[in-house]
């Protein structure tokens, strides 16, 4: 096992997702402790002291986000768990929703108490069926046990929850797009400032956190910030759930203590690459994070600081392993089709830029690439950067320039020879 486990710390059985099993694991003890012994500001302090970073992509400190909310400003506040999980390569929140939904609910109750939230929401992607049913059942169990509703566990604290289903839009996973969607509109992201913690859902202060970020709260309250900081590295406390896919023998969701050696994780825990192939590159955390080559990652640890130093990020934890023999031109074409399809179209650079990137890749793959297409791809990638409302435009550019930086020769080859160096192959080949 890659280090200590805080969220996946029990064997999954036919009943382990239910309330009785969760209670038997000590579940809802952190809520009782919170309501019985802690003031709301103590909870915010503890979470801030833990150094917990967001697990949705940007690794923004959870405590710092929470501190913006003024407990007693006389307005309603809202909390939303982001369960949209749309970043390609990412399927780790699904593990929590399916196998440990109560840890999310308990954590949301604690967060709601801390932030003076009367109504909280889980925004779950529309295609998720089993994760939705597991979560909805857990909500019913929790209501029946008096864990939601009025005067929870006999305290003054009351809180309700709604599970809200999306309807198919990647951009609705972006926090402000999510809020538009939860208001029953198309999922258009909004310009900031104002921050969502100042004006969010229906113009009220709103905290949006990723499912996994929130799911750490119960553990932090039970065990304390110091215990949390003792897990992981000083700059990356705790663990992260990685969803591993692509060319790998044992794909799946793994909880990894931050600071764990990356190659050891891939070789020992994930069983290495099929057919004994070498790693060509890895998408570290969802396709919006820059790829790193096998050589780049050889001595890296899985921590925010190591990834930042290497020019990438742990992002959403969606790790895609790519074996030698894979055509990066074809892979980038898939990615650019995705961003083009998902751009909401509000910002000109993103609307046109993603379309141009997609069409240029289409023509390179078709053998009609032009000599200056690589420069053109770079130019468009840069021109998105920082000029758009949300991060989707930027992400498309990073994904594109990231792959070009590392594998420029393959694109040159494809343009010059009018065919892919690797036959356009995306699968893991048996023999070389």
């Amino acid at each position, binding site marked *: 096992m890659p280090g200590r486990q805080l969220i996946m710390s029990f064997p999954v059985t036919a009943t382990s997702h239910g309330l009785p099993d969760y209670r038997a694991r000590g579940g809802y003890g952190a809520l009782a402790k919170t309501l019985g012994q802690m003031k709301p500001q103590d909870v915010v302090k503890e979470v801030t002291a833990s150094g917990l970073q967001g697990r949705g992509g940007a690794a923004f400190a959870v405590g710092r986000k929470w501190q913006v909310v003024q407990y007693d400003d006389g307005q309603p506040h809202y909390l939303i768990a982001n369960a949209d999980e749309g970043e*390609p390569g990412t399927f780790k929140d699904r593990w929590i929703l399916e196998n440990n939904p109560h840890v999310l609910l308990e954590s949301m109750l604690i967060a709601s108490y801390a932030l003076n939230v009367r109504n909280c929401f889980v925004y779950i992607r529309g295609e998720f069926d089993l994760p939705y049913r597991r979560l909805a059942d857990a909500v019913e169990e929790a209501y029946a046990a008096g864990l939601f509703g009025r005067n929870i566990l006999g305290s003054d604290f009351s809180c309700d929850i709604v599970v809200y289903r999306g309807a*198919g839009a990647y951009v609705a996973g972006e926090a402000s797009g999510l809020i538009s969607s939860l208001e*029953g509109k198309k999922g258009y992201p909004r310009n900031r400032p104002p921050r969502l913690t100042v004006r969010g859902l229906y113009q009220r202060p709103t905290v949006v956190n990723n499912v996994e970020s929130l799911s750490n709260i119960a553990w932090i309250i039970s065990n304390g910030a110091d215990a949390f900081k003792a897990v992981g590295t000083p700059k990356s406390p705790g663990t992260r759930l990685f969803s591993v896919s692509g*060319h790998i023998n044992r*794909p799946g969701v793994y909880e990894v203590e931050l600071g764990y050696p990356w190659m050891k994780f891939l070789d020992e825990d994930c069983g290495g690459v099929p057919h004994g192939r070498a790693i060509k590159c890895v998408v570290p955390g969802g396709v919006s994070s820059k790829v790193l080559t096998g050589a780049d990652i050889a001595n890296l640890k899985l921590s925010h600081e190591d990834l930042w130093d290497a020019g990438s990020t742990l992002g959403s934890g969606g790790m*895609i392993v790519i074996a030698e023999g894979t055509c990066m031109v074809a892979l980038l074409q898939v990615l650019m089709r995705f961003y083009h399809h998902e751009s909401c179209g509000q910002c000109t650079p993103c609307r046109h830029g993603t379309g141009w990137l997609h069409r240029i890749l289409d023509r390179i793959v078709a053998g009609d690439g032009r000599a200056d297409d690589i420069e053109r791809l770079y130019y468009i990638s840069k021109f998105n950067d920082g000029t758009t409302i949300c991060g989707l435009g930027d992400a498309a550019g990073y994904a594109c320039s990231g792959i070009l930086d590392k594998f420029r020769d393959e694109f040159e080859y494809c343009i010059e020879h009018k065919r892919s160096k690797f036959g356009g192959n995306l*699968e893991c080949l048996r023999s070389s």
Partner: protein
Amino acid sequence: MKHLVPEFEKLRERFPAGFESSLVLPCLRRIQEDRGYVADSDIEELAVFLGVPQIQIEEVLSFYTQFRRKPIGRWHLQFCHNVSCSMNGAENVLAHVERKLGIKPGQTTPDGRYTLSTVECLGSCGTAPMMMVNDGYHENLTLTKLDELLQGLK
């Protein structure tokens, strides 16, 4: 949609006061489950019921990929063709189904049984390749598995 109003009233009770607009997505989902798609009359009636502008509902319907304005086949096969699925043979399984059903993504078989689509990552990359059949996920697809599955869909 009128017969669904009692359900919608119940749904409304779960939301805080003033959140009528938020009911647009859940109500449309329910209407689509019921009718198979969302009709013009549904839009008009829902706008009145929730007190939201009709244009908001129309925008929602065109923005999200899961909503439909027209009926489709009884079985909706949606193949993921994003990175991890493509890296594990998605094109291959898709081509097999295209051949078998004689249709391309975006089309419905003449007997109205199957509609084929391609979709972007469905959060199931570790069990690639995968597809959705109506609401359910089918993972780790192989050609044999697909053949068996299609046989069972009448």
